[in-house]
């Protein structure tokens, strides 16, 4: 697989299926793993990083679950390609910086990605569409078991899996759920919900993970604690919280439907109208309007556009995707024009 093959492909997690996919976009689990006897990436020499890259990529070649995958060596990619991988949620923004000896392995379905030499030697992630953390855990657990037989992991019986940052030590696991909560935002209940989440030692982030702001009513919620609980307990804890948030969002949607149906219909259809006819549009405005159209689709107010198309639009209207589609470098102004054109084409054809 070449990087350009990804552009016409829809990631598994974008399909808009799976449990509670009206509120939950995707579920993700990542495991942080390090190789014994090698310094962590920030403290390692070039030769050591190369050795880690070689050892781990060789091990991954032998893992059945990673059979149909491609290893992208970041030094061989230009900045647009690297940004492109971030926009597809296949790697972190941090991984685009100081790219020497870094790589990311991506499988054909694009639900598995393994970053090599990011903050830890290995960051294995699995993404699923909808509310599906346990299924994600089962798959990633299998990959991890297979890798553990081939690689000597840094592990201590009392501290668990050892990581560069002590905040990840223990299970090395972070479970995240991406939620779409427009009704809680519109009814101004979101502040209360976010405060409660923080109190229970969970973190809320934006669409692109660490350091990003929540936008377009999207919130990514994940566990903070990785030590002292088993993996299944951590997942059960996240699930308990997410179930309650889904309930609240669903309730807020119902209240809006009964009490303010016209206002809601107006906002959703105006958003669709702008997307179908705008000539210049920023990515921020796109995300906000698409969020409303998605809500309309979930509530049955927008009938001819499915979730998958909306999910895809979120990704392909991002800066690097637009430039890959056009195959030229575009300035911000040029992108706003091209973005509007692409959205018009996609929505008016339907």
């Amino acid at each position: 697989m070449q990087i350009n093959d990804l552009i016409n492909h829809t990631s598994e997690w974008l399909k808009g299926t799976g449990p509670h996919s009206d509120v939950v976009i995707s579920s993700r689990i990542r495991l942080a793993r390090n190789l014994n006897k090698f310094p962590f990436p920030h403290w390692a020499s070039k030769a050591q990083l190369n050795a880690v890259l070689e050892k781990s990529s060789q091990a991954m070649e032998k893992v059945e679950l990673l059979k149909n995958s491609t290893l992208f060596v970041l030094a061989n990619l230009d900045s647009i390609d690297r940004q492109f991988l971030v926009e597809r949620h296949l790697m972190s923004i941090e991984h685009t910086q100081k790219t020497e000896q870094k790589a990311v392995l991506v499988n054909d379905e694009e639900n598995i990605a393994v970053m090599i030499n990011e903050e830890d030697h290995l960051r294995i992630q699995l993404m699923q569409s909808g509310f599906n953390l346990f299924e994600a855990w089962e798959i990633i657990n299998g990959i991890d078991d297979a890798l553990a037989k081939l690689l000597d992991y840094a592990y201590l019986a009392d501290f668990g899996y050892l990581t560069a940052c002590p905040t990840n030590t223990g299970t090395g696991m972070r479970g995240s759920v991406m939620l779409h909560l427009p009704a809680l935002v519109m009814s101004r209940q979101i502040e209360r919900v976010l405060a409660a989440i923080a109190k229970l030692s969970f973190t809320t982030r934006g669409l692109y993970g660490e350091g990003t702001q929540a936008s377009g009513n999207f919130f990514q919620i994940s566990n903070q604690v990785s030590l002292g609980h088993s993996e299944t307990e951590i997942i059960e804890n996240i699930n308990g919280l997410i179930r309650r948030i889904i309930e609240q969002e669903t309730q807020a949607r119902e209240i809006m439907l009964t009490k303010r149906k016209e206002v809601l219909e107006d906002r959703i259809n105006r958003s669709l109208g702008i997307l179908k006819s705008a000539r210049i549009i920023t990515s921020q405005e796109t995300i906000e309007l698409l969020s409303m159209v998605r809500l309309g689709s979930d509530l049955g107010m927008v009938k001819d556009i499915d979730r998958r198309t909306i999910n895809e639009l979120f990704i392909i209207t991002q800066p690097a995707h637009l430039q890959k589609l056009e195959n030229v470098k575009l300035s911000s102004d040029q992108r706003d024009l091209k973005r509007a054109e692409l959205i018009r084409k996609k929505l008016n054809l339907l």
Partner: protein
Amino acid sequence: MLCDICGKNPATVHLTEIIDEQMNELHLCEDCARHKSAAMEQQFGLSDLLGSMANFEKPSSKEEEVVTIKCPSCGLTYADFKKIGRMGCGECFNVFRKYLAPLLKRIHGSNQHIGKNPAKTKAPTKLYKTKAGLQELKNQLQKAIQQEAFEEAARLRDKIKEMEAKKEKE
């Protein structure tokens, strides 16, 4: 010219350090320079916070010892960790165990791993079926009450009741 630190490799990086108005010239090889600059790099945010937490954990009587303990495997000192907020390698966890254990407890509320183990590549037994599961739930309940997270506490209380009822039946 050989590196001032390791004395083995040729020095290719030349640094001028100013400490207390004393100017020092350092000639380093690439590897030592990388370690040196990582140690000097002041990162804000999480690493700062971790660094200051690590500081907080320091037993005052053994201040000197703490700063000079060095991981024999990767060369990271506890002072380095306080600056950059990152461990150097797996062995560091053994070397700094005394100071790390309370730090991990502050971060995670525990310093005892109970998740999977790479040697037995099998997932831990299913949740809430073992005795440990029940005890863990009780601990979580206590924590939730302390944090005044009453909704969470009520949920945990119900789970515990449910489990205990099942146990009695069995």
